[in-house]
Every structure is written in C-alpha cells, then in structure tokens.
C-alpha cells in the first residue's frame, strides 16, 4: 500500500535509503548543539532518536532533511554525499510536532499539495489522496477546512500529506507530543501500522521511551548534542550505558539512589538506605555507586522470592485511571513507583518491595554503567 518510491526526472525508482552521518557538528549562536555525531541508519530500519528536551533531536533531523547545514562533518544517503543538497533534492517526508496545514486549502487540497508540486495528473492525484485519506480514516472530511476539524483530525491530515509523498525516508519529529492522550493512544499504533506496510527508512525523534520502544528497532540516545549510546533498542534498554541514558530511557524516569560502599566484617556492602544494605563483595564495585531502579520495579506486594522491603513516605499519589504513579521520599531522596492498577493509599508510611536483581549499578564518578546486581 505504501510503496516507497523516489520519483526522479528520469523515472528511476529507489525503494529505501541508507543514511550515514560522519562527525556532524552544528553550532547555534556559538553554542555547540550537535557535537561530533556519527551514526548509521540502515536502509529500511526503524531508528529512534531518544533524549530529553533540548538534547538536539530536532536539529539532528533538520540536518538529515537538509533544512539546516552542518558546520562540520558529512551526510551520506546510500553512500552519496548529500551534505550540500537542498531539502527538495533529498526526497524526505517529515512529520513534525507543530504541524501547519494551509488554512486556505481544504483537507483534500492540503493532502494533494505535495503531489501538485510534483506535477502529477488530476487522476493520479485523486487516487493517491483518496487512498491515503481512507487509510487514515479522514476520507469523510476531505471537503472541510482546517479550522472546521479537530486537532486530532488535523494531525491525521498532516500525516496523510507527509505519507502521500511516498518518500524514501520519513523523519518524525515528536509527532505525538501535542496530541490528547487518547489520540496518542490510537495514533501511535496506527502510524506504526501504516509505516510498517512500507519499507522506508524511518527516524523518530522523541523524548518518550515508550514511543521509542514501540516504534524502533535501533536506538540512538542523544544528550546535550552527543550520542551517549546506540544499538539494538532492547539491548540498550536492558543495559543503559550511563546514568543519563538510564534516567531518560525509563517512563517514569529511573530512580537514582546514591549508595556508598562500606566495609563490614571483610565484606563489601552497598549502603542503599538505612534498611537496605546489599552484600556486593562478589561484584567488585568502586567506592561510590549510584543504584538505578525503574519505577515499575517497585511493588506493593511481594511478587517474588528474594525481594527486600523499604519504607518510604508518601508524597503524592497520581491516579491515571487504570494505573498510578506514586511519588515518595526515602531518607530524603525522591522515589517513584509505577503500578498497572490503582489502589488508594491511606497511610503516609509505605512498605514497598524491590528485587535487587532489578538494580542497575552505575559508577558515581564516571556515570558509567557497571553491572546489574546478581546474587553471589
């Protein structure tokens, strides 16, 4: 259905594109926003650029699209240097957070606009527009104007307009960020389903770990303009390279607890809290560690053998309908728990279960990941 074809003057067709960035650097107002980035996105791959706000995700996409030019480094499409190519020569489809529809054109003409620019015949345009509109469920509003339709419908129109181009590369810049949560719930799977039918190379920039996990096979973790980790996404999830990756590749954010190593009776003990001390003699850890624990790995009941208890105090219970996020304090530091159900917590003092095997241990000094806890 979604055939990814490049239309060129001589009618040559490609199906997908491999993208390579080599030592790409970009400055804005004297500040280095992209810092020596080298990545390679295989043809047909689904890559997520994950990172917190202001990591440089949008800039990186703009560089790939040709909207911005790098101050250093090269960009290759299928081995060809396109660093100096203007955007229109790169055949890229873009879907952005703040999408703008033409207010004076109706939905049909908005979707048709890239095809008109390409000089397709009226019949071809009609067929493409209707097919794309149908697959996104907006074929009944084709004659409405943008101001007459809802925000979610606008998003679908923008999506249809991007997809109708049948580009070889799609860049998605936080396409779900401004959507209602209900629309997000349906759109993220819908878009995945549509894009999965094609074979194009897709790069998604997002601050949301769930979106990245759902969409992508490959992860590029960007922080402060630098790539901190790249690789198969599930591998990165189970082995975050550093504290920053761990923190932001977790929803809600990973709990990080400073834990000094103390010597007790010739054993090395990780002092996580007053009541939680872990013998780590067999792990050979440095003196100062940070223990990372994802919020869904805190439990209200003892789920497995070998679980330990902690007693934090309740700060805020956030009810999300069918799930909840509980903000707590433990010995002065913040702790967050996620549960896939809602239960009203009446007492301020809580009893929480954790499994040490869910602990990610980082070096406080270097910030680097050392190991996951294993029993000796």
């Amino acid at each position, binding site marked *: 259905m979604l055939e990814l074809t490049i239309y060129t003057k001589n009618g040559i067709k490609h199906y997908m594109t491999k993208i390579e960035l080599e030592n790409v650097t970009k400055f804005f107002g004297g500040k280095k926003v992209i810092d020596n980035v080298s990545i390679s996105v295989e043809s047909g791959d689904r890559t997520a650029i994950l990172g*917190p*706000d202001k990591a440089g995700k949008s800039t990186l996409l703009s560089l790939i699209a040709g909207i911005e030019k790098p101050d250093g480094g090269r960009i290759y499409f299928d081995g060809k240097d396109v660093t100096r190519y203007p955007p229109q020569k790169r055949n890229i489809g873009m879907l952005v957070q703040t999408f703008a529809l033409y207010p004076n054109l109706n939905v049909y003409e908005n979707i048709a606009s890239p095809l008109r620019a390409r000089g397709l015949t009226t019949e071809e345009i009609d067929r493409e527009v209707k097919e794309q509109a149908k697959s996104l469920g907006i074929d009944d509003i084709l004659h409405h104007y943008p101001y007459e339709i*809802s*925000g*979610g419908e606008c998003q679908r129109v923008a999506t249809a307009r991007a997809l109708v181009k049948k580009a070889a590369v799609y860049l998605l810049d936080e396409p779900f960020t401004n959507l*209602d*949560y*209900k*629309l997000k*719930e349906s759109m993220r*799977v819908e878009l*995945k*389903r549509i894009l999965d039918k094609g074979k194009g190379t897709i790069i998604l920039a997002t*601050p949301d*770990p*769930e979106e990245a*996990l*759902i969409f992508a096979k490959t992860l590029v973790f960007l922080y402060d303009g630098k790539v901190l980790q790249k690789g198969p996404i*599930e591998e990165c*999830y189970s082995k975050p390279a550093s504290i920053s990756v761990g923190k932001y*590749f*977790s*929803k809600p*954010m990973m709990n990080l607890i400073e834990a000094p190593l103390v010597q007790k009776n010739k054993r090395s003990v990780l002092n996580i809290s007053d009541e939680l001390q872990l013998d780590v003699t067999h792990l050979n850890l440095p003196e100062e560690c940070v223990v990372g624990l*994802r919020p*869904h790995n805190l439990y209200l009941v003892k789920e497995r053998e070998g679980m330990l208890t902690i007693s934090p105090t309740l*700060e*805020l*219970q*956030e*009810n*999300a*309908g*069918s*799930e909840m*996020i509980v*903000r707590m304090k433990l010995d002065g530091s913040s702790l*967050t728990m*996620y549960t*896939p*159900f*809602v239960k*009203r917590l009446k007492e301020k003092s809580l009893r929480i279960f954790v499994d040490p095997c869910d602990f990610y241990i980082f070096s406080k000094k270097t910030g680097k990941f050392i190991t996951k806890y294993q029993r000796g």
Partner: protein
Amino acid sequence: MVEVRLENLTHSYDGKTNAVENISLTFQDKTANGLLGPSGCGKTTLLSIIAGLLKPTRGRVYFDGRDVTELPPEKRNVAIVFQFPVVYAMSVFDNLKFPLDANTKMSKDEKRKKVLEIADLLDLKPILGQTTTRLGPADKQRVALGRSLVREPSIFLFDEPLSSIEPDKKSFLKTKIKEVQKRLWQTTVYVTHDQTEALTFADNVAVMNRGKVIQFDKVEKLYKKPNSDFVGYFIGFPGMNILNGCLKGDEINLDDFVIKIPENVKFPEHVTEVKIGVRPEDIKVSGEKRRDWIPFKCDVFENLGKDFGILHLTTEHHRIKVKSKLSFSRGSDVWVHFPFQRLHFFDQKGRRITTF
C-alpha cells in the same frame, strides 16, 4: 468558601453551534472538581463562564445561591491559573504582593506577612528577590499560583496549568498544587485534557464531550462504573474495548464468537443489541488452546519496557487491546477469555445497561 451551581448553561460563539449545551452541575463547597475531555469539548468555555470572562448565551451561574451571571470577573472573588503563567516583570516578592497593593485596609506588615506565608507554602522563599524574567515556566507558574492565592479567593480555577511546564519539574509542581489544595480547601475547578491530572487533583470529575457533560462522578466510579461507552473508553490506559453483539437466548452473539450469559444474569426485556465494554486489564490471554476460550490473531505487541505490554488482537470483525504479560508475534494464535462479571454493557446509544 463557596458552592458553585451551574444551571442550564448554553454558550454559542457564532450563534450556530453550541460550544457548551444545557449544562447543569453543582460543585459543592470545598471540593476539588475536574473538567476532563478532548480538545474542543467545551471545558475551557465552561471555566470562562464560571470566572465571568464569558457571559453565557443562556443559563445562570450561582455562587452560594447568589446569581452572579451578570457580575464581572473582579467582583466574583475567583482566581484563575492559566496554561501560560502570567507574571509581571518584577521581583517574585512584588509579584506576590501586587494584588494586595490596592488594598488600603491592610498594613504594610500584614501584606508582607501574607506574602511570606504564601511563599512558604509554595517554596518560593529562596527566590523572592529574583525577577521573574529569568525563571523557567514551572517557577513562573508557582509565582502565578502564589499571586492568586494571596487574595484569598473563594474559588480557584485552573486551566491546564501544567501543559506548558518543563517535564522534569511537573511532578514537583503537582505536589505543590496538591498541598495548596489540602491546606486551603477552597472550591476548585481544574480543567484538563489529561486524565492523570484530573483524577489526581479532583475528587469529582465531569467527563465532557462535544459540549456536554457525559458523567459527573467520583473518580473511582468513573473507572468502575462508567455510565457510557465514551467514559469507559476515555478513562484508563488503554481505554475500554467496545464490541457490538446481539442477545440470542442465553448467549451474546458477536458474529465471530459467542459469549455465554450465566444463568443468574438477566438483561432488561427490550434489549436485543448491546455494546460490550471490557477493560484491557480484565481480559485473559493464553498462547495455548483452552476450552471455551476464543481464538484471536495477534496484530501488534506494544512493548512498553514494563512487566506488561499492550497486545492488539483481531478476529474478522473485532479488534481488542489487552494488557498482557505475555508477548506474541504478529499473526500468531492467541486464545482469549472475557470474565463475564468484568463486562460492562451499553445500549445502542452508548448508555449503561444494568443487568440483574
């Protein structure tokens, strides 16, 4: 300390379509209330009418039984916190003091005391001397919140106050808003499209759609006993699955499969067609064939990096989402069980059907 009563409110901006239509609601004194709905549902319009920023086309607004429909905002003793924090380019202290400046009854010391009290409540003391121009959105919002608090309003209105706040500061601000609510206990109305915010800050939530209030109820009830398929879908992540079926004897026929009706369950007589609501967390799945379980095919498994993911399953006519600890690959067979006591039933118009 005020009870807010809305009576048959209708408002139209263009004289053709109604942004809100015939809404009657009562927010009890000292309760926290939420207005929740998709964008364009009329929740901000309703809030503006309560604040006096908008005069309704029809209907009345009462504060403690007094008709305030014609009163301008400044005479209603209402405070509003907007999505984009409104602060003046002066120090945090002066921002907080600003609403008191015109008050001639208060002495300078009293004003100072009041400002410090509010600053303490919102942890603003360390930045009292700073000008607001350098503050980030979350800090600005705290200042805006504080400024509306010093006036001691009787009604507190929030219009998406967290939507433009940087993500890493959101939970801190949430904690502060909740604390303010607990300490001061004004009647509050909180407008949001985010179910987490609505269900966290409010005791009672009005779920809105297309200018109408669909259900106004306690937070727990919205989840456990939605009055309509819309509320069932809207509350919870993912929302409730809605499947169409026909009652035939002791079964519900869903074309591709049937669900047996237990002997002790009776539907009202006139009902023949039903919409079955079932929450993604209430469905059981298995990779092996089981007696009386229904065969589905796996379409997508959404890995969320947690102990469960979201499984999308299909039959020829139906598509459901399941919160599942088991993952499956596309196209594989999955057997499904719908526990009958967990099912919700709605009529063709989406209204809840009570079985007996």
